[in-house]
């Protein structure tokens, strides 16, 4: 996965965000998004207890008691507020986060997400993944189209452990933007030169298509 592809995904997800949205960004590709928001003002929520997360500080302004959920030093935007973990998850689980942008190991054709555990590997971390899946109003998965072993991330049925009953609304990869509903997966945009046939070949679930394309 090139940095270019990661940036392409981040840029495309950034388009989905609107002024005033409260957004929680997962680790990995989602953390690139703030660089591509242009004039849009979104409020970043960090589940360890901050609304209004700002960029990384200069070296001389680091405070290791002001960190992101990824445990990196951060700053606060104007209008930021601090709260404890229980209040933070009132915000997340109570449906007050407009958009969560998360990574994923797999997503099924209806948007069900697996993003915390790989079968056969030690399952020792979940963090806030399941809380976000259960509580965010809208979930966008930002992920490479395929796993490192080449297997598609979008699948008919999850083979990795589910993250819960919450569903992703959208999947953005370096090749395409998919939208999920109870009817299944719809391709709503292509982001690379792959033909529909080529795209289907590297995708683990069938999808319908909103536009005509060869």
């Amino acid at each position: 996965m090139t940095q270019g592809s990661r940036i392409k995904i981040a840029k495309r997800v950034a388009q989905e965000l609107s002024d005033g949205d409260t957004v929680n960004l997962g680790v990995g590709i989602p953390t690139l998004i703030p660089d591509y928001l242009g004039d849009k003002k979104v409020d970043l929520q960090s589940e360890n207890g901050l609304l209004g997360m700002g960029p990384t500080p200069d070296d001389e302004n680091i405070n290791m008691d002001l960190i992101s959920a990824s445990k990196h030093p951060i700053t606060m935007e104007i209008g930021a507020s601090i709260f404890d973990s229980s209040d933070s998850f009132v915000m997340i689980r109570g449906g007050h986060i407009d958009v969560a942008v998360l990574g994923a190991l797999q997503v099924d054709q209806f948007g069900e997400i697996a993003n915390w555990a790989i079968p056969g590997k030690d399952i020792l971390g979940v963090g806030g993944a399941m809380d976000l899946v259960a509580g965010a109003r809208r979930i966008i998965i930002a992920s490479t189209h395929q796993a490192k072993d080449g297997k598609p991330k979008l699948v008919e049925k999850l083979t990795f452990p589910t993250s819960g009953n919450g569903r992703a609304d959208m999947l953005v990869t370096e090749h395409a933007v998919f939208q999920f509903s109870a009817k299944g997966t719809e391709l709503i945009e292509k982001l690379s030169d792959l033909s529909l046939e080529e795209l289907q070949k590297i995708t683990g679930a069938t999808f319908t298509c909103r536009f005509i394309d060869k």
Partner: protein
Amino acid sequence: MSKLIKRTELSNLIKDGDTLLVGGFGLSGTPFTLIDELAKLDKKKLTVISNNLGEKDKGLGILLHTGCLKKAVGSYFTSNRDAVNEWSKGNLEIELVPQGTLAERIRCGGAGIAGFYTKTAAGTKLAEGKEERVFDGETYILEKAIKGDVSLIKALKADTKGNLVYDHTGRNFNPVMATAGKIVIAEVQEIVEAGELSPYEITTPHVYVDYLVMSNYVKVGGRYVDAGKQN
């Protein structure tokens, strides 16, 4: 300052087999001094409830080398290889809890609530053995309150009554843990006179705090370092 004790008194407050609630997210808001002190003691079969087990050789991570731990309850252990190794070797039990559920279970422990129904983790491996129940067409699971014998928390400042304020996101789990321990010990950087903290600023009212211990750590370049080990 009747709540102020020496850190060496920790030995009398923690018993073998105790359940400890330990504040912190990663290393922020971590009671380093209290953990250092605990590592010196010959305690056994402790259960530690904390979001993480610190990092390798840092914060709670140091307890993995002392043989005092029986079990860890938290949301994310993968970032400390030692925890994963001890678990693989069968030396450490681990109970994995979603972060929001962990915070809420501890809050309930402090609030006199026995349990609550949440959508988080419903339908997942982490709901195995938990009661499911449908409310308004959606599936929830019953999660039960967590209480501790002793809470070890970290605040920025206390006043002489024991009211606490925290440093930015160093707040994290500390305030809920202050409510849910039978004994609550707060490590602080500074103790000011009662009245110096505004009634609006106090995050943990003194009623929750039994003892205060002065931190042995200072911040250098925004990072905590052991004052005793500084040059």
